[in-house]
C-alpha cells in the first residue's frame, strides 16, 4: 500500500549499531597522569580499575554482589602526543581505552610549569571526555605518584578524587575541574589556582598540600593550604567549612571555623598612574577549640577578635604577596580593570604591572558563636 516507503528507513536500520560502545568492552580510565619529557615527548600514565566481581555466592543476589575491593591496573608509556600514547597502550590491553569516566587528571609539577593547557588539548577535543574531572598538580612526577604505595587503598583515582572533594568542602583548595580551570588558564584577566597533591612517605598516604598558582598557562608558584583558604576567603569561594588555627597572645591556640565571610574587591584605575586594589574581608567565625575558655566575657572575646583580626590580616597579606610574587592574578583584578576600563587595560602590560601593584587588605574577624560551651 501507500506505506511502502517505511521500508526504506527500516532497511537502513538493519545495518545498525555503528556507534555502539558497549560498557562491557570498555576499559574505563579513572585516573590519568601526564609528565613532560625531553624533546617534546611526554609520558602518560593511566589507571584502569579491574573490577573482579567474584561469582556471587550461592543464593544469588540476596546478600548483594559480594564485591571485592576493585583492583587497578596502572600503565605508563612514552610517546609524542597523548593520543599517540593512548593508542600504544590500547594495543597492550583487551578492550578499548575509554576516557569517559575519568575522575582525576594529574600533571607533574615540572610539566605544569610549561604550558599546562597544551597537555589537555586532547581531552577538550574529545566530546566524550568528562570535563568535570578533577585537575591536580602533583608534587613530583605523576607517573611515579601512581606507582607509589598508598596504605589500604586499591583504587587510587577514587581515593584521590575523594581526597580532593573533602578538601574542597573544607575550603583547603578551590572547587575546580578541568573545564573551570582551563577557562581561567586562557583568561587574560585572571589566573587559575589548581590543587596540589603530594605523597607523604611516612604515612604512606596522599596529601593535599596547598594549591598551585598559575601565571597564564604555566604554574608559577605555590600556596600552602592555609594560604589557599585565605585566597578562597578573599575570592568568596569558601565552601561548607573552613577551619583555621591561630596562635594568639599568651601562647594560646585557638581554632575557629568560618560561619560566614564577605569579601569585597575594589579596583581603582586612575587615568594616569598605576591601578590599585583593596580587598576588604569581613569574617564571622565560630570558636571550635579554645582551652582557656571564658568566651562569655565580653572583654575576652573583644581582645580575641582583635588578635584574630591581626593574625588573619597577616595571613591574607602574605597570601596576596605570594600571588603577586608568582605573578598570578587569581583574584581576577585584571578582569575588573577590563570591566571598568578596557582601553586602559590594553595599554597596561599587565604581567609587568601586577606584581608591583598596590593591593591593600582589610580584615575584620568576629567570633559569633562559641560552640556548646563558652
Amino acid at each position, binding site marked *: 500500500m501507500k506505506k511502502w*516507503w*517505511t521500508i*526504506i*528507513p527500516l532497511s*537502513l*536500520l538493519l*545495518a545498525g549499531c*555503528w*556507534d555502539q560502545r558497549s560498557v562491557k568492552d570498555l576499559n574505563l580510565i579513572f585516573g590519568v597522569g601526564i609528565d613532560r619529557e625531553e624533546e617534546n615527548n611526554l609520558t602518560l600514565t593511566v589507571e584502569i580499575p579491574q573490577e573482579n566481581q567474584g561469582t556471587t555466592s550461592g543464593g544469588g543476589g540476596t546478600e548483594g554482589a559480594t564485591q571485592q575491593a576493585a583492583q587497578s591496573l596502572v600503565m605508563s608509556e612514552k610517546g609524542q602526543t597523548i593520543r599517540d600514547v593512548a593508542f600504544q597502550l590500547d594495543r597492550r590491553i583487551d578492550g578499548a581505552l575509554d576516557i*569517559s569516566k575519568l575522575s582525576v587528571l594529574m600533571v607533574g609539577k615540572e610539566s605544569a610549569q610549561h604550558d599546562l593547557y597544551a597537555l589537555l588539548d586532547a581531552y*577538550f577535543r574529545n*566530546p566524550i571526555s*568528562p*570535563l*568535570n574531572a578533577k585537575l591536580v598538580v602533583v608534587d613530583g612526577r605523576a607517573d611515579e605518584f601512581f606507582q607509589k604505595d598508598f596504605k589500604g587503598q586499591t583504587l587510587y583515582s577514587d581515593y584521590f578524587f575523594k581526597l580532593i572533594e573533602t578538601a574542597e568542602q573544607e575550603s583547603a583548595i578551590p572547587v575546580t*575541574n*578541568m*573545564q*573551570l580551570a*582551563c*577557562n*581561567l588558564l*586562557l*583568561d*587574560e*584577566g*585572571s589566573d587559575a589556582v589548581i590543587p596540589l597533591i603530594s605523597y607523604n612517605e611516612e604515612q604512606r598516604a596522599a596529601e593535599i598540600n596547598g594549591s598551585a598558582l598559575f601565571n597564564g598557562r604555566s604554574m608559577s608558584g605555590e600556596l600552602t593550604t592555609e594560604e589557599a583558604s585565605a585566597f578562597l576567603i578573599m575570592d568568596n569561594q569558601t565552601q561548607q567549612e573552613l577551619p583555621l588555627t591561630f596562635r594568639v597572645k599568651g601562647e594560646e591556640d585557638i581554632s575557629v571555623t568560618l560561619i560566614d565571610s564577605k569579601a569585597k574587591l575594589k579596583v581603582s584605575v586612575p587615568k594616569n598612574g598605576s591601578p590599585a586594589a583593596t580587598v576588604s574581608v569581613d569574617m564571622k567565625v565560630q570558636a571550635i577549640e579554645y582551652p582557656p575558655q571564658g568566651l562569655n566575657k565580653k572583654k575576652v572575646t573583644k581582645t580575641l577578635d582583635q588578635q584574630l583580626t591581626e593574625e588573619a590580616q597577616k595571613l591574607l597579606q602574605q597570601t596576596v604577596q605570594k600571588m603577586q610574587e608568582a605573578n598570578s592574578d587569581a583574584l*581576577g583584578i585584571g*578582569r*575588573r580593570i*577590563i*570591566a*571598568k*576600563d*578596557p582601553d586602559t587595560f590594553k595599554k597596561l602590560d599587565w604581567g609587568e604591572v601586577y606584581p608591583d601593584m598596590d593591593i591593600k587588605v582589610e580584615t575584620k574577624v568576629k567570633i559569633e558563636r562559641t560552640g556548646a560551651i563558652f
Partner: protein
Amino acid sequence: MGGKMKREASISTWQLFFFLLQTQVGVGILTLPYEVHQAAGKDGWLSILLAGFFIQTGIFIIWILACRFPEKTLADFLPLLVGRVLSIIIIAFYTLFFFVVASQVLAIFLSITVKWAFPRTPSIVFAVIITALTIYLIQEDVRVIARFHVLMSFLLLGVLLVFLLMWNHLNVYYLLPVGSSGFKDILSGSPKALFALNGIEILLWLFPFTQAENKKKWIAAAGASLVVTVIYTLLALCAFAYFSAVKLTHVPEPVLYMIKSIELGIVERLDLIFLSIWAVFSITSFMSYLYIAAMGAAKMVNAKHHKKSVYVLGVLIVPLAVYTSNAETIKILGSITGKAAIAFLFAIPLFLLLVAIIRRKREGTG
C-alpha cells in the same frame, strides 16, 4: 480557485504562538553564542537582541500585509497583487528558500550529531529517519502539526534548567563593560543571529489558518519571536559569563560545553540529555520549514493536497542535506540564507505591501 472557502483546519492563537516558537527555536541553540561571539565579542548578545528587533519589524510588515487578506495565504493573494506569472515566481522563490533552510537545518543537525555523539553512524541514516518521521507528521493538516508543536514546547523547560544549573558558575565581569565592542561589530553579528531566529516568514502561510482577531495574531507572532529572542539572548549571556573570551573562540558549541561540566549526583554528563532535547527542537523546526515548502510546492502545481509534494520534497532533501553537512558548506550556505532571509522577511513583504497600498487591493476587491 481562491474563492472564500471555509478553512476546516484552523488553529488557535496559542497554537500559532507555539508553531512559530518551535520553528524559530532550532539548531541555533547550540551554536548561536559562538557565532555572535565571533562577530561581536562579548557583546554578541546585543547582536541577538538587535536581530530580535529586526524580526519584530518584519513581523509587523508581514502582519499589515496579511491583515489586508485575512482569509488568504500568500499563495492565494499574490496573483491579485502582481499577476499570475510573477506570483508563481515569488512563490517558487519562497518555496525554494524554505526548502534550502530546511535542508540547512538538517545539515547542521547532522554535522553536530556526528561531532558530538555519533561519529561513525553515516549521516544518511539520521537524515532518512528524521525525514521519514517528518513526513509522517507533515502530511497531516496544519492543526495536527500545531498540536505536536505545542506538545513539544514543554521541553523548553529543559532549556531553562540550564540557566539554573549554571547559575553558580557565572561571572558577570566577563560581560562588562557592555557595548565595548562597538556598534559596528554588534551590527555585523546580527545577520548570524538572524539565521537562528529565522522562521517567522511562515506567518504568511499560517495567518489565514488562525482563528482569532488580527490583533491577537500579531501578539502571538510578536510574542513568540520575543520569547525566542529572550531565550537565545539568555543562552548567549550564560555562555559569555561562563567562558573566558579566549576559551569561547575554541568552542563552537559553547552551550554543550557548558553543560558538560555540570555535576549532578544522579546523572552525569547532562550534555547528552541536552543534546537529545536539542534534537527535538531541531526536528520540529525542520518539520515547519518542510511543511511550508511543501505547501508552496503544492500551490505551484495546483495540487489539491500537499501530501504528494511532501513525499517529493522529502526524497529530495535527504541527499541535499547529507551532501551539505560539512562545516564549510554550512558556512557558505548559512551566509547566503542569512542574507536571503532579509529579503524574504522584509524586502518582499514590504514590496507587496506597497503594491497592495498603491493598487488598493484588499480581500474582496480582487
